[in-house]
């Protein structure tokens, strides 16, 4: 039973994906049933495992390919953090996508690859070895491409090309890093840290750099972030997937695994790798924010904001002090909830009112109250005002920086917060306090219906506030991050 559960967790989305490919366009009900059913089933399994893992259970499945090449699926506290986020958001994004796409063409292709992406993300979360991680990481790259080019127009094809131009060379670097490491120390399992000291310091540093470059393209670390704003050509549910459910998160999660489970915090410090990583994360945080400020398109602004926000996770891990690690881990979930809310709303603004630019938002609050409230909550969370999730992250990172003896990080956090405020608060101001522009007053009041479009945004918006308010609970992201940190890394 314990061996079957990780496989089942993977199969919920894999089976949904495979079956969906073969459905004709017209069978909406069956397709929706498959995808929603898979997502609900997955959440159920996760809920069960969450309770078991608190009590100390570990689930493991092994699948041999060739000597030294095997797949290991392992459910531990860290993998559950990621998989529960992606499963929860998968359900909501599926509901949203069904409403958003309506009866547009190629639905079976869309939902098939969408579920495949989630399967790959689940695999990434559950991977117990480097090579398992790599296999699912590649599967994610491949299954995301058809979604990025889904509209099949010139802009989407260009976005898809840009995506692969970053992703494939990055994965080549990742593979080199893995093979280089494993050819000396043997297959690396996350749960049983290998003795990396068999390699000399220089090799280890190069390998680490290769790992960060390989994962950094997905995590959108500067200067490997260029594909992310370009990918805005894709439909809104895909943006949600890229920014919150799967892709960017997979990169950040990979950095966590490499730092925490492959190199380990001690070796990181010995080799002097922590500081460069923290600096890289800081540069990314500031650069992303600065670029976000320059964007006039809402989705582009959100994209650069993601570049900045995801690096909070990397920063927390790099600082390596207890509070910083906990803050970084928790931000994996916090950022997901807030950013997906913003993208859901941006999609509604675009789809229902034709709003794509910042200056078109004037006075939309009165016309589309629900979407506007949710968007505002997400934006406030991103800035880090209490009591939202973003506030919790920043406090923890700040304390962590002091603990780690790196007070300069506080300056980075402060500057980033100011920038966040500078590019998000004007939007909130426009939405609620400015008179509606000509475009909005002319037509009828734009609708936020059907329910499937607005309900997911409302849920994630309130969840992002709730995880801030209830941060002290065991099953809150912060509580869970504390559990992971205490159990695994801060003994």
């Amino acid at each position, binding site marked *: 039973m314990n061996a079957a559960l990780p496989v089942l967790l993977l199969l919920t989305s894999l089976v949904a994906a495979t079956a969906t490919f073969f459905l004709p366009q017209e069978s909406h009900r069956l397709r929706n049933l498959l995808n929603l059913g898979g997502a609900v089933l997955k959440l159920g399994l996760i809920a069960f495992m969450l309770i078991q893992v608190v009590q100390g259970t570990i689930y493991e499945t092994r699948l041999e390919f060739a*000597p030294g090449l095997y797949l290991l699926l392992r459910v531990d506290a860290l993998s559950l953090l990621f998989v529960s986020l992606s499963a929860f958001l998968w359900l909501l994004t599926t509901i949203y996508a069904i409403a958003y796409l309506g009866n547009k063409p190629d639905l079976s292709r869309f939902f098939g690859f969408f579920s495949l992406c989630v399967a790959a993300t689940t695999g990434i979360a559950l991977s117990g070895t480097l*090579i398992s991680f790599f296999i699912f990481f590649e599967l994610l790259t*491949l299954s995301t491409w058809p979604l990025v080019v889904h509209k*099949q127009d*010139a802009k989407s094809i260009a976005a898809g090309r840009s995506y692969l131009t970053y992703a494939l060379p990055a994965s080549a670097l990742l593979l080199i890093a893995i093979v280089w490491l494993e050819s000396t120390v043997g297959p690396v399992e996350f749960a049983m840290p290998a003795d990396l000291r068999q390699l000399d310091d220089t090799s280890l540093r190069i390998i680490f750099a290769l790992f960060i470059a390989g994962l950094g393209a997905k995590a959108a670390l500067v200067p490997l972030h260029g594909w992310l704003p370009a990918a805005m050509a894709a439909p809104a549910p895909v943006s949600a997937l890229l920014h919150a459910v799967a892709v960017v998160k997979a990169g950040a999660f990979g950095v966590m695994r490499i730092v925490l489970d492959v190199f380990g915090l001690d070796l990181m410090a010995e080799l002097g790798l922590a500081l460069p990583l923290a600096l890289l994360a800081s540069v990314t945080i500031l650069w992303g924010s600065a670029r976000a400020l320059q964007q006039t398109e809402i989705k582009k602004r959100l994209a650069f904001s993601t570049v900045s926000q995801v690096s909070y996770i990397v920063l927390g891990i790099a600082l390596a002090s207890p509070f910083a690690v906990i803050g970084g881990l928790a931000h994996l979930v916090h950022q997901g909830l807030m950013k997906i809310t913003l993208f859901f709303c941006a999609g509604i603004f675009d789809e229902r009112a034709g709003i794509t630019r910042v200056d078109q938002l004037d006075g939309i609050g009165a016309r589309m109250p629900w979407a506007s409230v949710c968007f505002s909550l997400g934006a406030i969370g991103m800035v880090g005002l209490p009591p939202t999730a973003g506030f919790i992250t920043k406090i923890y990172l700040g304390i962590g920086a002091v603990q780690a003896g790196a007070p300069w990080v506080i300056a980075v956090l402060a500057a980033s917060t100011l920038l966040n405020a500078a590019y998000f608060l004007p939007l909130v101001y426009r939405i609620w306090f400015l008179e509606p522009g000509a475009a909005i007053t002319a037509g009828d009041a734009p609708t936020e219906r059907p329910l499937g479009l607005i309900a997911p945004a409302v849920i994630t918006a309130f969840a992002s506030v709730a995880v801030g308010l209830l941060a002290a609970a065991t099953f809150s992201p912060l509580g869970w991050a504390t559990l992971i940190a205490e159990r695994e890394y801060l003994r």
Partner: protein
Amino acid sequence: MILSLALVALVAVPLLAALLAVVVPRRGALIALLGVAGIATALVVLVPALVRQGVLSLSIGGWNAPLGITLRLDGLGLAFLSMVATVMAAVLVSARPQFAARAGSGETRSQWAFWPLALLLWSALNVAFLSRDLFNLYVALELLTVAAVALVAIEGKAGSLAAGLRYMMFALAGSLAYLLGVALLYAGHGTLDLTLLAAQGIGSGRSGGTAAADLIAAGLITAGLAVKTALFPFHAWLPPAHSGAPAPASAMLSALVPKASFLILIRLWFEALPELASPVLLTLLGALGAAAVLFGSVLALRQSRLKLIVAYSTVAQIGYLFLVFPLAGGDSFAQPWAAGAWTGAVFQALSHGLAKAAMFLCAGVWIIAVGHDRLDGMRGLATATPMTAFAFALAAVSLVGLPPSGGFTAKYLMLTSAFASGQVVWGAVLVVGGLLSAAYLYRPLALAFAKADTPTFAPVSRRLQLVPLLLALAAITLGLASQTPFSLIQIGRPASAVEGLE
């Protein structure tokens, strides 16, 4: 008894079917399917026996080598036989609409000739996989060349006739070199049987014959086989020949034919003459392979016709195979990493066969839909023929070496060997080659996914679309379930290397 029968059947069934197809020309397609069934049955009988008893051999008529003809089936041979059988089954099914004689209409030359030629080719391949005698192998290669050249020129168009002629010139030169080398080897050692040659320990100093003569002989044989495998710089014949033939023929030519001469090279250097392999020679073969990877890929990037892209891709993919020589050949074969490289190369040959055949059959589907294979006509094909686009994408995943696929298993095994043995240069070739292949295969795929302005395509039957998808899935499955083929391939593998990397 039944095992002997099955072993003989692997050679005899396609040969008899070829003859039958000549005698009863209007039933060519049916006869070919019977051939597929016969081979499949023989393989089903042989696999469990091989697993149980290890290497199987049969001396025909009871005459042992060097006098008689011996058929010997090891894991390596079985892997190639199975891959070829899978591809041939797919090709013969796909060829039916194009080459089956239709009632009422007159029979064309290509309809008459295709089936016997394809079956003859199959028989020659199987002989090459089962034979252990350099002269028998020569006969198999000649038979293979004749069938392959005829298939290139089967439509009788000016371009394909020229391509076929060019192919024949190269192949004959290769045969001459091979034959010369074989004669020298025979003069020095009095036998051409691979096992008996191995027993003499050629190159170790304790064998008869002079070292220089042995080296020249082996060099000539290797050069001849390299020409037939289209190793850089002897690849010039391949792209026009493979892209000029009709799609089902291209699939056989590109996916299968080079594998026979490559397998002989493997047997020659790893089984018969391991001690003759000097580091210089191994590095030279590796360097030519690396050049093929880079050169073939760059040329593939510059083509504007789909079939030419796929054909140049074969030049590049064959290059990977030759990296096995520096990674696992010579003295290093005793090292723990050698087994990985050797098995990786075999996986590369197998998965390339499946994926490349899938790709040419996809090209065939699209040629029917569009009328030509120029890239500019491909817009909108993914919407019109989604199954084919998916098949092409899956085949591309395997060729690029992305997981999970047979191509990835191959690349992983070879890459690990490269790093473990400190030969990082070959590892870099593998990685750069993978990226280049992603680049040249991305072009047609992205075009197929783009929206068409005026999407008017001829309809293509679903069966014709399904076949390449199944082949591409087989290439993926080779990676997902590598364990079984991995252990099968090890049966009868030249010993001395420890299994796998620990």
